């Protein structure tokens, strides 16, 4: 597999407008994201995960270090629109990213800005709405939809730009469990269709569904690995104010009771199956 995003020694400082003092949000971060993969980034509030996301598609410009998107330097103003087209973004608050009062017009916003041919936009909008299962809502007003539905509209807006990668910046944080399930299903489906997914989240069970997990703390990468490799380090995660998925939590407690449980059980179904054959 080829690397689609390459982050090399990224540093990002916020500058306070009052006294020009700086605050380092990202400190020497390096990692790669493979084309077509599903990567999760976890970390507590203020760990720098949102800042990292905004650096990737050029909404923020790195203080030092480089980010390459499909070989393009994201800091080069020449590349900025190209980069944003290839790496679309979905934000946390479903209300604050929908521009238009009609669903389909909102989805068309990105391609319109890119100057896509009107007939082609129509086609893309319909396809994007179908891919998030919101086609029948295309003429509705967004403010009448549920949080999960609004978030799916925002995802359709990203999909209509035909990006190769979508960065999801805590897309489920403000949703109820039903909305969260809807959004996670959509993310999985898009990933299966070949879109590279980068999911920033603080729900461990969501991170457990990714191919690769990056743990961020105070602007630094603390761990990188498969969910199996990450979640077996429960103690370290707790020290970073993070948790583990329920199955891992149970496995841990069983081990404390002297019951041997393998390390590779991440989902509830896995541990249930294992325990049943123990009996």
């Amino acid at each position: 597999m080829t690397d689609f995003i390459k982050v090399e020694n990224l540093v990002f400082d916020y500058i306070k407008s009052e006294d020009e003092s700086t605050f380092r949000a990202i400190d020497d971060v390096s990692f790669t994201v493979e084309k077509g993969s599903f990567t999760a980034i976890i970390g507590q509030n203020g760990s720098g995960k949102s800042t990292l996301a905004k650096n990737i598609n050029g909404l923020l410009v790195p203080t030092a270090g480089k980010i390459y998107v499909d070989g393009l330097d994201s800091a080069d103003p020449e590349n900025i629109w190209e980069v944003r087209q290839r790496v679309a973004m979905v934000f946390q608050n479903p209300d604050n990213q929908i521009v238009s009062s009609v669903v389909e017009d909102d989805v068309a916003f990105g391609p319109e800005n890119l100057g896509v041919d009107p007939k082609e936009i129509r086609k893309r909008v319909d396809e994007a709405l179908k891919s998030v299962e919101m086609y029948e809502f295309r003429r509705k007003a967004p403010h009448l939809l549920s949080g999960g539905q609004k978030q799916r509209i925002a995802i359709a807006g990203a999909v209509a730009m035909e990006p190769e990668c979508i960065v999801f910046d805590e897309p489920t944080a403000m949703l109820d469990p039903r909305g969260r399930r809807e959004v996670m299903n959509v993310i999985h489906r898009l990933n299966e269709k070949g879109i590279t997914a980068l999911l920033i989240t603080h729900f461990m069970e969501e991170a457990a569904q990714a191919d690769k997990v990056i743990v961020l703390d105070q602007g630094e990468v603390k761990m990188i690995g498969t969910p199996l490799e990450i979640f077996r380090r429960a103690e370290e995660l707790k020290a970073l104010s993070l948790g583990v998925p329920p199955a891992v939590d149970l496995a841990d407690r069983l081990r404390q009771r002297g019951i041997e449980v393998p390390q590779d059980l991440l989902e509830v179904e896995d541990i249930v199956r294992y325990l049943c054959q123990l009996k």
Partner: protein
Amino acid sequence: MIRDITLGQFYPGNSWIHRLDPRVKIMVTLLYIVSIFVVKDFIGFALAALGLAVVIAISRVPLKFILRGLKPIFILIAFTFIINMFMIKGEVLVSFWIFSISREGLRMAVFMAIRLILLIIGSSLLTLTTKPISLTDGMEALLSPFKRFGLPAHDLAMMMTIALRFIPTLLEETDKIMKAQMARGADFESGNILRRAKALIPILVPLFISAFRIAQDLAMAMEARCYGSNSKKTRMNGMKICSRDIAACLIFAAFLAMIILERILL
């Protein structure tokens, strides 16, 4: 209460009126407003009202919905009515103390009230039957000849789209903040004007902060979706004048001719 405001809202539909080109609708609405100020007698108003009624019928927007939008403006209408009724001098019909109502005053008051009602219904019909985004597209197109004088037509249109989009969001936000402060014992209903104005601070401060937060998020989201890129923007639903629009123009021209003839001849 907040949910009753229909002014400036869009009523989704697919009627003949809904499908007209927004440029045509904007021009027609403007001319219609001029025409109700041309009219000077009851027959003229009857004609203007009839025209409006036909449009409402074709648009299939429920009358109840349209009338609900008049409610918040009722005070304005009543105020105009009373001012006109008492201020215009002429043949006195009734008088008491220092006030008197004249025939001319009453006539004028009724006319002004009808004018206002027609004006409000007429213009709200434009927003009710035109998607906000088409409306702004139409405005942008009509304003674009002024671009050469430095008028940022596209940005103005975008600002309007966003304003329309966020009216319901901010209303909801206001409702939430109000309730939250009421739960903390805030009282918006008693006391004199000064006290009441002061009581608004706990609502206004969080509301402004909210608006700024929304603005920040939205600006970021728009940039992420390539707003401001150099490529020439396109529109999914490009505007094209078709036979239906020409028909609408002709029908409206006939209506205008009738209004003008009525004014001259009767």
